[in-house]
């Protein structure tokens, strides 16, 4: 029997999906602005963060209302709890997009150097992780979600490699210290981006399979 | 189980069985008079019962045979008249007491009904004599009907009131809540619901009236000839039995037994018919 509040759960899912699209778009724009040295695009990203925050507030309130008014249990309860968690992850991903956008200006003069590093590779992988984690939420696909968890290691390794490369670079070429520092920080941002995508994927697995996979060491899922 | 527990169990079972046996014995004891009366009158009167008994008029003194056709019909007419007078009054009084009677007037009416039920039936007959026979200047079925009607009233009133009170308040509320006026709710919803119980009361009242003799002596008097006019004296089973039983003729005494048996059987049949007719169309819940 369909209950009338199922509509509210669907609406909530829809709002989350919209927020996810927005955040994905922000990331894309921010990375493009970074690697193309596009200042005005970077400014757009920073302006649009207000929208991301508005979604954050909206979803928190929607969740609270649904909790209060419908006393969800089982899958509905897991969906709601994870919605709150995913909401907060998305909001932070939005912030990272802004952080990336903020570093476009200082690096605009160092595009070659920037492009010579593996940062854009990292950015691509991290963005795919975010997109896959969102897709897995939309489709309720725990398998896709678990693939995201695997990719986190790749990003961590790239981050470590980039650190070593840049430190060597800074030792050797003093004039590159500043841009290198920015790139280091960007690398850290991207590493955290991958972590947020991983968290979202773990929440999806929780919703779908009622299994808590957070905080388990090692790659992949342990049953 | 240990020994004391076994003993205690046996003791309990023995007590249970003793109680059961005792109850059965009491039941049988209560049934004995009924069975005795039935069978005794049957044995005594069976020889008088044949088709003629039911369709023929009484024969003149000295001749054997004949029947009690007029008495049978007379009882029917008297009960009919009595019902006509007594039932509406009783039922309406019962409805009033149940629905509107929680006040001093209601209390008075209830008290008077109780008093009325205690008055000896012969007195009621005298009253009917005074109020009907005297003005009419002769005995009549009408007067008999009035007497029987008065006798029916207390039983019908009390039973009707009880049965209506038993109907749960929620049905009244349900009726009122869909905009049915109070009186219609009482008549069309509460009354039908209480009907089964009320007809039991009516049956009791009719059974009592059918068995009355004394009041009829002053009112309907009795009639050896065929008569169905209500302004004339009329025969009845009970007066027939009274007259024939105290006569010196053996044939008449035999007929009295037969009539007695018919009367009992009639009342019994009445019960059965009422039960069948008022059985709810729907299964008991």
């Amino acid at each position, binding site marked *: *029997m369909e*209950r*009338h*509040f199922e509509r509210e759960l669907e609406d909530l899912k829809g*709002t989350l999906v*919209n927020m996810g699209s927005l955040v994905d778009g922000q990331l894309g724009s921010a990375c493009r602005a970074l690697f193309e040295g596009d200042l005005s695009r970077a400014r757009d990203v920073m302006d*649009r963060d*207000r*929208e991301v925050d*508005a*979604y954050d507030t*909206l979803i928190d*309130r*929607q969740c*609270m*209302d649904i909790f*209060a*008014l*419908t*006393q969800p249990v089982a899958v509905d309860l897991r969906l709601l709890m994870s919605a709150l968690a995913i909401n907060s992850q998305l909001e932070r991903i939005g912030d990272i997009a802004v952080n990336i956008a903020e570093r476009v200006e200082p690096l605009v003069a160092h595009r070659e150097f920037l492009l010579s590093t593996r940062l854009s590779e990292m950015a691509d992988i991290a963005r795919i992780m975010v997109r896959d984690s969102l897709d897995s939420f939309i489709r309720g696909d725990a398998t896709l979600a678990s693939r995201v968890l695997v990719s986190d290691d790749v990003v961590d390794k790239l981050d470590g490699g980039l650190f070593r490369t840049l430190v060597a670079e800074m030792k050797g070429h003093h004039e590159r210290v500043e841009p290198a520092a920015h790139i280091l920080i960007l690398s850290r941002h991207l590493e955290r981006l991958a972590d947020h995508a991983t968290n979202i994927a773990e929440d999806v697995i929780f919703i779908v399979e009622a299994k808590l996979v957070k905080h388990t060491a090692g790659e992949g899922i342990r049953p | 189980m240990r020994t004391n527990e076994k003993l205690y169990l046996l003791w309990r079972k023995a007590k249970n069985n003793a109680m059961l046996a005792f109850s059965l014995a009491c039941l049988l004891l209560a049934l004995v008079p009924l069975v005795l009366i039935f069978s005794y009158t049957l044995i005594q009167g069976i020889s008088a019962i044949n088709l003629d008994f039911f369709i023929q008029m009484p024969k003149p003194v000295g001749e054997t045979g004949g029947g009690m056709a007029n008495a049978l019909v007379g009882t029917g007419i008297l009960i009919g008249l009595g019902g006509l007078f007594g039932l509406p009054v009783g039922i309406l009084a019962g409805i009033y007491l149940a629905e509107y009677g929680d006040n001093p007037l209601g209390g008075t009416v209830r008290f008077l009904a109780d008093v009325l039920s205690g008055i000896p039936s012969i007195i009621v007959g005298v009253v009917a004599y005074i109020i009907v026979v005297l003005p009419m200047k002769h005995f009549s079925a009408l007067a008999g009907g009035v007497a029987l009607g008065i006798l029916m009233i207390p039983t019908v009133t009390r039973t009707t009131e009880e049965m209506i009170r038993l109907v*749960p308040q*929620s*049905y*009244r*509320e*349900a*009726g*009122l*809540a*869909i*905009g*049915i*006026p109070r009186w*219609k709710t009482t008549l*069309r*919803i509460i009354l*039908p*619901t209480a*009907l089964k119980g009320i007809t039991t009361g009516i049956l009791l009242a009719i059974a009592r009236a059918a068995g009355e003799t004394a009041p009829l002596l002053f009112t309907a008097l009795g009639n050896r000839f065929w008569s169905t006019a209500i302004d004339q004296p009329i025969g009845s089973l009970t007066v027939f039995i009274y007259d024939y039983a105290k006569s010196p003729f053996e044939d008449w005494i035999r007929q009295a037994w037969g009539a007695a048996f018919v009367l009992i059987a009639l009342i019994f049949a009445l019960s059965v018919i009422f039960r069948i007719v008022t059985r*709810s*169309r*729907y*299964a008991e*819940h």
Partner: protein
Amino acid sequence: MDVPSDQPSPAAKAGEPAKMVARNVDAFFGKTQALKKVSLEVATNRVLAIIGPSGCGKSTFLRCLNRMHEVASGTMKGTITLDGQNILQIDEVNLRRRVGMVFQKPNPFPTMSIFDNVAAGLRFNGHHNRKHLAEVVERCLRQAALWDEVKDSLNKSGMSISGGQQQRLCIARTLAVSPEVVLMDEPASALDPLSTAKIEELIYELKQNYTIAIVTHNMQQAARVSDMTAFFYLGELIEIGETKRIFTTPEKRQTEDYITGRFG
């Protein structure tokens, strides 16, 4: 910039006057005062839930709305209006046609069939056209989500169906006289969870065409089903507001204590 926002408050359509308004209502049963200065509005085509601990006056208030308190020898001071008209000045039989009531224990008339039960309100007020009655009975049984289950057994006794079905039958019976307001006094408290859920969904559908006020001791039900919630305590209205707000951020401490189960 497209900033998403919440839906506008469903509590009351802006500008539409309330269906029933109570002002300073006191209610007495003999010397006992059951209600003290209760003032509230029942918004049109919305569901108002009335909650509170036992003996708080919620059922009494509900019964004042269609003057059923008079059946239990209650008296009322203050005013209650229906579409602006004082209900004491409306003939009570007429009032009860416009403001219907469903009770806690399902009470279909025991001597009547399912069809006759639904048609009772109309039939006993002079409508005898068989075809018209049949139409109304079908319409109301459909509205009460009972038609499919009983359409082949309309002549069976009203008592031959299950408790949940009987309650829906009572709802259909109430709807048959075309009320504007439907009052429900703990309509699901005597029913099993599935029947309760069916009744709740029914209420959600009905509010499109009727104004509904429901008394319930089940707070979660009030949260699921209503648009506005009123909290009563010891005969007084403590707080009334949009259900969403009452169950997330109530204003009064008493309200919060009650709905969190800390008392009552």
